């Protein structure tokens, strides 16, 4: 078997050294009836070629986003990732390394984490960022818990225009803690009044920018009003490319910023693995969840990096830890960092402009279609439209013509019939003008 180096002779020699006769003598502590007498009911081993064929068959049974005009966003975005990113993350030194607990032989991972933290702090406009969470949604849940710790309060006010999955995760993660989630109805493109919901018992308000429906807001006034009341503002970003064009959450006065970093360096992967971004103010650093990498020196005075402030974490603090997180998004942070380094300030801003320009173009192309109304006044690379027909049915019809037209909001809000005709459409630099023209033609046809 290609992955198992021990030979029959090796095994015999080793058993002899251990002074047992049979491999099952090493399993003597297993209750007798529980040790299987035969093999489990699964196929036996396969050759490399056979396995590959199996997966090619799975792959062929799904429609790859890159193979059709594709307009789904809503928290995961199809961007182009440079080839060198994927090469680097497959280097064995990165791919097959563990968490950098032995810093002398982990400086590669540690320095890239430090670069990652620096980049995330910069793009969010915050003081510090951690070395990643599982994804944006779990980072959002952790932000709610952290806000409760910082303020010693328990009400969490959540915008109705936060990604519904994120709302669900916040509710789930706080379900068995003291946290109380106050949710709001989605308003599409209408402003929300959140500050009036803040009472003494409130820990934070969570908003998204651009929001789930694509609208862009300046939350500076909300931040000021919350700070006057000693409450925290959590700003969520699910499309990190947007921060190359819009005012950063830090500049608006956010106390905690969380985001989904998948857009940079990482593929769609049907929902994971992604990379959760988590940034905050210096004064709250000891309340942060997750790993942190810090700069220090070695015994010779040379600069180096270590995991630090570990007393916040489960492996030391156990039940009093700031989170139970252990494994993070390691390799996905590396992909993020390399892609961001390849972009640089210039490329990042250019990419943002390119995304926005393409989206404006599609919006303009859609303007003349009867039965379609664009709801957004502002947007980055995603906007919401109201159709004259049921959006899910329109999307299914277009699938038959090899177009994936966007996200019918009813998929996430099945119990809100008022949203049945709402469709969210996303554009990235990978969307060609031909793709747009096909979508326009198909929508015209189906909405006729």
């Amino acid at each position: 078997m290609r992955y198992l180096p021990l030979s029959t002779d090796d095994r015999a020699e080793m058993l002899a050294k251990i002074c047992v006769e049979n491999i099952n003598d090493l399993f003597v502590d297993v209750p007798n009836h529980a040790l299987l007498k035969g093999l489990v009911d699964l196929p036996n081993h396969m050759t490399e070629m056979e396995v590959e064929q199996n997966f090619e068959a799975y792959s062929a049974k799904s429609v790859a986003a890159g193979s059709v005009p594709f307009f789904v966003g809503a928290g995961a975005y199809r961007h182009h990732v440079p080839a060198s990113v994927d090469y680097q993350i497959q280097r064995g030194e990165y791919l097959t390394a563990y968490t950098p607990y032995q810093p002398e032989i982990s400086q590669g991972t540690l320095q890239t984490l430090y670069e990652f933290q620096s980049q995330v702090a910069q793009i969010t406009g915050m003081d510090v960022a951690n070395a990643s969470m599982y994804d944006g949604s779990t980072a959002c849940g952790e932000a709610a818990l952290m806000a409760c710790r910082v303020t010693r309060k328990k009400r969490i006010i959540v915008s109705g225009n936060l990604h519904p999955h994120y709302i669900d995760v916040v509710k789930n993660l706080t379900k068995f803690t003291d946290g109380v989630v106050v949710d709001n109805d989605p308003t599409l493109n209408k402003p929300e009044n959140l500050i009036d919901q803040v009472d003494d018992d409130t820990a934070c308000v969570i908003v998204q920018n651009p929001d789930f429906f694509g609208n862009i807001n300046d939350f500076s006034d909300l931040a000021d009003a919350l700070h006057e009341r000693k409450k925290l503002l959590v700003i969520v970003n699910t499309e990190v490319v947007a921060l190359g064009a819009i005012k950063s959450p830090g500049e608006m006065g956010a106390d905690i910023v969380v985001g989904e970093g998948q857009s940079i360096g990482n593929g769609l992967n049907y929902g994971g693995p992604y990379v959760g971004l988590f940034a905050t103010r210096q004064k709250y650093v000891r309340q942060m969840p997750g790993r942190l990498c810090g700069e220090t020196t070695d015994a010779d005075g040379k600069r180096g990096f270590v995991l630090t402030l570990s007393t916040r974490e489960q492996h030391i603090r156990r039940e009093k830890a700031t989170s139970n997180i252990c494994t993070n998004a390691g390799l996905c942070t590396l992909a993020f960092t390399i892609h961001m380094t390849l972009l640089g300030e210039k490329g990042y801003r250019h990419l943002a402009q390119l995304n926005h320009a393409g989206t404006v173009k599609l919006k303009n192309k859609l303007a003349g279609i009867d039965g379609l109304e664009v709801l957004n006044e502002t947007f980055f690379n995603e906007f919401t439209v109201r159709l004259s027909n049921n959006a899910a049915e329109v999307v299914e019809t277009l699938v038959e013509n090899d177009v994936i037209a966007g996200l019918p909001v009813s998929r996430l809000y099945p119990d809100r019939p008022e949203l049945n005709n709402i469709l969210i459409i996303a554009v990235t630099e990978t969307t060609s003008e031909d793709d747009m023209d096909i979508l326009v033609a198909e929508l015209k046809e189906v909405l006729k």
Partner: protein
Amino acid sequence: MTTYYSEDHEWINVESGVGTVGITDYAQNALGDIVFVEVPEVGDELAKGDEVAVVESVKAASEIYSPVTGEITAVNEDLEDNASLVNSSAGGDGWFFKISISDDSELEGLMDADGYKTFTAGLE
């Protein structure tokens, strides 16, 4: 002014109804290089035995329990930037907080300097 010691290796220095609390030299030595002290907030009300502070080294965090019942009247803000004060001066500049003592009788269960010395000798 009298100094008392607890079995949790805290000292409390009592002067006109207010106790200044820190950890002993024995404790700082056992904890190693101290990197952070989380002190309570002024105004916090505590019962004897409540968790009141946390002292951290790189790989460990230890809870500090209030030796008496009372209200926090001051905290040592110098520790925020310089936790190593606890190592260099556990019984002096490395104090943690001041607490107004509600019930003097709680001090009776604590040790004096000699008693603490005997206590730690027994731990070796």
